[in-house]
């Protein structure tokens, strides 16, 4: 089932500005994990803001669960389905304590107290914030703050989770932890996940990768296919993940490896075999 549909979407901020999105056509299926990649200023974050009607197209149409974002009456319903987490947690934390912050959205929606307490605790557990329930968010480190923002988003039981560079400020362990959890939400709870990132290592894990440049989509397909397309990546000003670079460099030096091998384990296995043959 299509959960997000964008048809011929165009957008500019003011009538006199140039277009920031040009003829965007994108369909996202329910339960899919799609990563949207591109350099700074490519329009990827702008695009994300169409998914919960923060922006609406000047031309074309965006449908979320079949509801048009151009109809203001749909906005409340759409925003309950789509949770967003942004890059800088300082801009999205409002509560005086961690648990208050996580409860903020639930409280706004009038969730009964008992259920709220339970859902807050659940989200806090899932994001590994146990013991910090009563801490003041602004005293936490950047990574911890981001997990608070994520816990708040998840507590609303959204259908779609949009992460706009939400891991870019975390340390490697924190990043892996968050991604692992996002992966779990996607697999076990069939949540649709959209990650905006320029970390291609993160994009590799998604089902589908959408590459943006100058407000247009220039690539859309399996990450493994797009990541071997050097021209596309160069155009998009993105860097191939290390393992792809390495395989290519080795091939250039006459080491017979097929480009399909992408995991470190597979590459090492092949190299060991090759050595024994020599």
């Amino acid at each position, binding site marked *: 089932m299509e959960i997000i549909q964008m048809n011929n979407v165009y957008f500019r901020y003011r009538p006199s500005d140039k277009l920031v999105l040009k003829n965007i056509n994108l369909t996202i299926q329910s339960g899919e994990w799609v990563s949207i990649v591109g350099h700074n200023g490519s329009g990827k974050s702008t695009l994300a803001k169409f998914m919960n009607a923060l922006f609406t197209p000047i031309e074309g149409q965006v449908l979320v669960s079949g509801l048009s974002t151009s109809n203001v009456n749909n906005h409340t319903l759409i925003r309950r389905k789509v949770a967003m987490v942004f890059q800088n947690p300082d801009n999205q934390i409002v509560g005086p304590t961690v648990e208050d912050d996580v409860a903020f959205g639930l409280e706004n929606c009038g969730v009964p107290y008992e259920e709220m307490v339970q859902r807050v605790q659940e989200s806090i557990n899932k994001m590994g914030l146990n013991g910090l329930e009563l801490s003041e968010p602004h005293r936490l*480190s950047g990574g911890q703050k981001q997990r608070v923002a994520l816990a708040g988003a998840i507590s609303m039981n959204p259908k779609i989770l949009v992460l706009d560079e939400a891991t870019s*400020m975390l*340390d490697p362990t924190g990043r892996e932890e968050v991604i692992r959890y996002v992966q779990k939400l996607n697999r076990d709870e069939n949540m649709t996940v959209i990650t905006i990132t320029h970390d291609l290592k993160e994009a590799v894990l998604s089902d589908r990768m959408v590459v943006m440049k100058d407000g247009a989509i220039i690539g859309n397909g399996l990450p493994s296919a797009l990541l071997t397309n050097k021209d596309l990546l160069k155009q998009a*000003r993105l*860097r191939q993940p290390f*393992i792809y670079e390495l395989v290519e460099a080795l091939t250039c*030096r006459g080491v017979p490896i097929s480009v399909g091998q992408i995991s*470190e384990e597979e590459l090492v296995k092949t190299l060991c075999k090759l050595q024994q043959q020599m």
Partner: protein
Amino acid sequence: MQITATDVAYTYMKDTPFEKKALHNFNIRLKNHTYTAIIGQTGSGKSTFVQLLNGLLKPTEGEVTIGDWKIYKDTKEKELYFIRKRVGMVFQFPEHQLFDETVLKDVMYGPINFGKSKKEAEEISKEMLTLVGIEPDLYERSPFELSGGQMRRVAIAGVLAIEPSVLILDEPTAGLDPQGHEGIMNILFQWYKGSDERSIILVTHQMEDASRYAEHIIVMDKGELAMEGTPEEVFAQQKELEALGLGIPETVKLLKLLKEKSGDKKINTVKFTLGDTVEEILSFLGKD
């Protein structure tokens, strides 16, 4: 300038119910003209430590020295003025500190504030804007009309224009795309190489940057010094780093895996560039 920390401790909100020890028993000695990277998990005390180096925080115990200056519990604000003139600081998202009408005025604010004449300030500001790759046609623009990458460069030029001897960088490229990241890292390295009076202290989560640019690496854990040494020394200790929740550069990780799987003890796993890694693999295959 030489930088030392002797028995330094820092406690946030001391003597309150919120008391939190961020740093304790911390000792460090950094030679003049070194590029140091500080790595450690979120909350390990990295940012607290660097904030002690220009007196944004004062140690609750022990002392920090920067050249001939000392920072301890009772250091007066007045003395910190001189330290701040020598120690420049670039935080995450430095563009949030932009404020003036034009790019040039914004960069000139620092040097004028530290007593330079308008003419001198303009000269040094233009020099630093050139260094960070901002063209003269942008000087009279509002800094807020620039792209994210350009704003960051202007903000960095503003710190460099103070002509610090020590530059502290707290994840200076957070949020930038790969090209923007590499551009800024190279500019900062160039600045460092520009004079042998200059030092850099880089706080980073990216092991690739720590291995590529730094000569000295400090590993922090729970407010203490966990490890210290050259990139080669530090990244050879994969198990210890993993126990601290830290990674190693991708190049080292792959070569370690190859060494384990093949049992070939001759493999040198401490390689930090793509080229060196390729050579090491070729020599493993007997192809060199």
